[in-house]
């Protein structure tokens, strides 16, 4: 039996022994233990070190608000830092280590910071480290030098770099009623709503439903509250319209009654089952939310209140009643309200000696005096704790007379020997979700607490959340909320009967005992009462300034323990009531949420892969793939030992000499259909399409409304009211939305449907002097000669018995054809074309060769249509129809878009026969040391097999006017400088004789 474990009691499974380690030392605990309760049972008092002063710290709380006992949980190499020991359910083989200490928790060199105490006061960073004005450490250097050490001293746990092997998952849920919190109020609400047939989700962040019923020691309907809770849960489990989510923290209340919750599915298990996620992220759309989230007990602010062994009263009660662990043998309590008396009695029952109850109030009610004597505790009314003693564990405390009216201390101090000091500074309703939902909390001077605001979304509060701290009220409010949420009338049926200790819910308005020594407000961040007063002296008096200047409330507990005491101290300094200092609006998340869980199913799978039908063929035939947006496209089909350049040069040369074939299935394809299709195209393209003959294609250009170039491609007229539009791969989605917008919003009178058929049709572009011969040898059902298939003509036929649509158009500048077929057949067509091409030495080519040939031809792509260029800049003004308005026509001639200093498309030839780089700049005079006066930049470049030179396309100031002149490429990033000649962008076969054949 471990030193602090009680003989009996608690809902732990004493028959199950669980082995785990903390900081390397082996410990045992029982089923149902948290890491905190198990270590406490083993006599551990020191759990962590504080952020700034590295002070030794013990457990403050028993739940999610714990600020001190943060640990890192290890699963092999994978680290999970900053987890509150109070929230870690132990399992066999659990490995946990403490944080923010070197070399050990017991001996931490960081503790020397305590010596600097007064210098390291709030805001000290801002007042120093500016460093010298001159010399080697001027500017930012001195600060960065100091910062190097500050950064290493700061921080809590250490994150790992080993990839997390776990799976995370998202679940989209819908319900009529979401109940948050499973205490008596939540259970009643869930049951009432479920009985009405509503779809109910009940979520609680703890492993066991029941909330305070699990440790209050009260009885409900004649049975222990814990049993009543378990019985209620059992009744809920039966209903198939109820989903129970234990270990599930509802952390975010978003617009539209959308709530975000995190379910810890396997964190408490040794291992996950096959396919089981570590955590599940619930996105819940709820009709109505019942907020039954309870309340937090507040610490009191007094010297030495952070000593290990000083704990919240209800936390000690939980450890004793729920886990069968005594936080101390000789326990004193320090309180400003009645609830601590119940805790005293509970701990007495559990076997501790209650040496004293120190109450700041002089007038303590008779009921409380009765409870005190029941606990056999000396009652020191009108007293306060002014000091605590001990090092890594509490040994005693000092008390003095205290006047709650004016906060004055009097008389001699008196020492009390105790190894546990439990404090209660009153209770704060857990209103975070209500605040997130978008409203400001309201201060209640009786409760000395912020109460939930009027709902701004569909939620109803119940129980301690509303400031109703008694279980009887919780049960009544819970049922009423459940019924209302389910749309049912209120019920007058009798409610479960509660037997509970008496108590006044209103505390005395005492938050701080002013005496000598450090009194902590924010435990983790080491913010003291003096820091708050310093902030006041320096004018940081609004609550947000207070937080930001002192970091109060910015720790991992997000102010759950410190907000109200901090505000109270500032209010006193200002001589204003607390609400005038204000409260900060709570923001998501309620408690910290793992980033993996938010990535959910996309962890390890950020974006889908988009594949053409021929993808597997490309992979099997030596293609190196290139990711273009979500698509994968062949870059080259390299041969053994070939460089990328050698490969694309071979592919391009072979195409120009005989024939090549490329997969063009990724081009955006949009079916434009309907009586007004032609009219619509006339409006969206800069050039005419209504005049296009059936069975012919035309190259088209689109502008944006602002008159700049948007996208280009060929559009085919397949019938009177039937067009097939092609777009660039990159812009397919944008163009689709553009068209849909105009049809839906601007021109609803047009009878046109647009449908993405990108995936319906797969395409192969086959080009080169022998392309036609290859087609002729394998296409049936149509001729492909000049008469049957002139430039920009379209025919229908078959390849390998499969229907194909062939359009004669050219991107490569060769005699070329695009062969389209249904995607399910296209690989067969592709293979048939390659087979037919064998006698002609047909090559497959990839994006690099495609790019090379288009650069030789001077065609533009996304690199030139970059959202900043006009049709004129790209020498496409010949496509701007004067006969009709089109999208962008009214805006395209504004002064800035026709200015003479705009960048224009030109060609470049490297005069030093060395490769050029995309993104290199163009200058008139070369200055490698201090490059300046850029004229423009290279958009695309390659080695041109056709010209035998390194060439490029570029956007250059002056443009055409510079044809034939010399300049320099200036590429300091890649140290590439050299002479170039500026030429026309049409390097190769400018009059197009090859493609017209």
């Amino acid at each position: 039996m471990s030193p602090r474990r009680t003989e009996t009691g608690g809902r732990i499974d004493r028959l199950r022994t669980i082995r785990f380690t903390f900081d390397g030392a082996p410990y045992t605990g029982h089923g149902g233990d948290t890491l905190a309760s198990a270590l406490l049972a083993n006599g551990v008092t020191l759990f962590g070190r504080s952020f700034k002063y590295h002070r030794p710290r013990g457990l403050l709380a028993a739940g999610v608000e714990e600020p001190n006992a943060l640990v890192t949980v290890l699963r092999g190499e994978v680290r999970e830092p900053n987890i509150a020991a109070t929230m870690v359910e132990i399992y066999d083989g659990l490995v946990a280590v403490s944080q923010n200490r070197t070399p050990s928790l017991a001996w931490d060199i960081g503790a020397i910071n305590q010596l600097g105490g007064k210098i390291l006061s709030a805001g000290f960073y801002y007042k120093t480290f500016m460093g010298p004005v001159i010399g080697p450490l001027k500017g930012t250097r001195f600060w960065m030098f100091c910062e190097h050490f500050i950064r290493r001293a700061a921080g809590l746990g250490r994150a790992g770099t080993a990839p997390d092997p776990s799976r995370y998952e998202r679940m989209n849920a819908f319900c009529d009623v979401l109940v948050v919190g499973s205490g008596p109020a939540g259970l009643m609400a869930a049951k009432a709503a479920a009985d009405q047939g509503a779809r109910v989700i009940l979520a609680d962040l703890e492993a066991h439903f029941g909330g305070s019923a699990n440790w209050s020691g009260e009885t409900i309907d004649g049975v222990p509250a814990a049993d009543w809770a378990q019985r209620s849960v059992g009744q809920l489990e039966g209903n198939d319209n109820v989903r129970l989510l234990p270990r599930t923290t509802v952390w975010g209340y978003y617009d539209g009654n959308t709530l975000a919750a995190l379910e810890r599915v396997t964190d408490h298990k040794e291992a996950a089952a096959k396919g089981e996620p570590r955590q599940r992220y619930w996105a819940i759309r709820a009709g109505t939310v019942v907020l039954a989230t309870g309340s937090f007990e507040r610490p009191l602010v007094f010297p030495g209140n952070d000593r290990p062994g000083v704990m919240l009263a209800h936390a000690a009660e939980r450890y004793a009643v729920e886990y069968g662990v005594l936080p101390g043998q000789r326990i004193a309590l320090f309180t400003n309200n009645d609830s601590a008396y119940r805790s005293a009695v509970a701990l007495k029952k559990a076997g501790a000696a209650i040496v004293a109850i120190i109450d700041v109030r002089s007038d303590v009610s008779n009921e409380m005096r009765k409870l005190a004597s029941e606990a056999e505790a000396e009652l020191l009314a009108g007293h306060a704790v002014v000091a605590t003693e001990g090092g890594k564990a509490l040994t005693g405390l000092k008390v003095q007379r205290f006047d709650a009216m004016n906060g004055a201390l009097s008389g001699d101090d008196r020492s009390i020997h105790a190894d546990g000091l439990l404090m209660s500074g009153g209770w704060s309703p857990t209103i975070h979700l209500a605040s997130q939902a978008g409203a400001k909390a309201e201060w209640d001077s009786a409760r000395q607490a912020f109460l939930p605001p009027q709902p701004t979304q569909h939620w109803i509060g119940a129980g301690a959340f509303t400031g109703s701290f008694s279980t009887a009220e919780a049960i009544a409010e819970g049922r009423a909320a459940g019924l209302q949420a389910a749309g049912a009338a209120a019920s007058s049926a009798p409610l479960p009967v509660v037997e509970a200790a008496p108590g006044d819910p209103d505390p005395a308005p005492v938050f701080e005992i002013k005496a000598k020594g450090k009194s902590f407000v924010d435990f983790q961040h080491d913010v003291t009462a003096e820091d708050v007063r310093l902030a006041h002296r320096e004018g940081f008096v609004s609550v947000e300034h207070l937080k930001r200047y002192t970091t109060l409330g910015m720790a991992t507990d997000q102010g759950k323990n410190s907000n109200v005491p901090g505000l109270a101290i500032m209010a006193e300094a200002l001589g204003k009531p607390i609400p005038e200092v204000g409260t900060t609006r709570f923001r998501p998340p309620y408690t910290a949420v793992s980033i993996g869980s938010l990535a959910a199913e996309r962890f390890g799978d950020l974006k889908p892969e988009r594949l053409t039908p021929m993808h597997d063929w490309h992979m099997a035939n030596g293609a190196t793939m290139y990711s273009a947006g979500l698509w994968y496209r062949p870059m080259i089909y390299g041969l053994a030992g070939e460089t990328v350049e050698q490969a694309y040069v071979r592919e391009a040369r072979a195409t120009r000499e005989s024939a090549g074939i490329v997969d063009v299935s990724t081009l955006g394809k949009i079916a434009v259909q309907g009586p007004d299709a032609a009219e619509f195209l006339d409006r969206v393209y800069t050039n005419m399409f209504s005049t296009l003959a059936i069975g012919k294609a035309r190259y088209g250009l689109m502008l944006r409304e602002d008159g700049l170039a948007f996208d280009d491609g060929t559009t085919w007229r397949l019938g009177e009211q039937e067009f097939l539009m092609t777009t660039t791969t990159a812009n397919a989605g944008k163009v689709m939305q553009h068209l849909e917008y105009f049809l839906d919003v601007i021109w609803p009178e047009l009878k046109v449907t647009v449908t993405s058929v990108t995936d319906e049709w797969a395409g192969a572009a086959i080009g080169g002097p022998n392309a036609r011969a290859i087609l002729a040898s394998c296409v049936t059902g149509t001729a492909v000669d000049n008469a049957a298939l002139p430039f920009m003509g379209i025919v229908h036929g078959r390849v390998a018995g499969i229907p194909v649509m062939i359009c004669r158009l050219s991107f490569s500048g060769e005699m070329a054809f695009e062969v389209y077929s249904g995607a399910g057949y296209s690989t067969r067509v592709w293979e048939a074309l390659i087979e037919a091409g064998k006698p002609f030495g047909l090559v497959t080519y990839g994006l690099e060769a495609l790019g090379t040939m288009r650069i030789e031809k001077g065609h533009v792509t996304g690199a030139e249509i970059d959202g900043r260029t006009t049709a004129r800049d790209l020498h496409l003004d010949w496509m701007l129809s004067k006969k009709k308005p089109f999208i962008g026509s009214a805006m395209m001639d504004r002064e800035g878009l026709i200015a003479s200093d705009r960048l224009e498309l030109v060609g470049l030839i490297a005069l030093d026969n060395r490769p050029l780089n995309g993104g290199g700049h163009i200058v008139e005079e070369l200055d490698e040391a201090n490059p300046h006066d850029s004229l423009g930049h290279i958009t695309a470049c390659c080695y041109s097999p056709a010209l035998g030179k390194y060439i490029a396309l570029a956007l250059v100031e002056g443009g055409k006017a510079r044809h034939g002149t010399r300049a320099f490429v200036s590429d300091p990033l890649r140290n590439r400088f050299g002479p170039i000649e500026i030429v026309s962008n049409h390097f190769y076969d400018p009059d197009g004789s090859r493609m017209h054949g």
Partner: protein
Amino acid sequence: MLITCPYCGPRDVIEFTYQGDGNRERPQPASQNLDAWNAYVYDRLNPAGDHNEIWQHSGGCRAHLRVVRNTITHEVLRTAFARGGHRTEGRS
């Protein structure tokens, strides 16, 4: 945030694409009034409160909607098809 698509019913905002100020009037295609074009292309009403907006249900039926939404509370007050005409009683 949930937006009720007249066709698909209430859907998460993730399914929608915002298309901005729905009060803008596009000039007649042939209009040469550059001020009107500039106002249409660049200027936006940007109220703190109820706002007439265009949204596309791009992750659903792809219809464009006229939405009245409060820019302070994010409450969606009204939704309708931008392109009238369709007699499809909505689900919600």
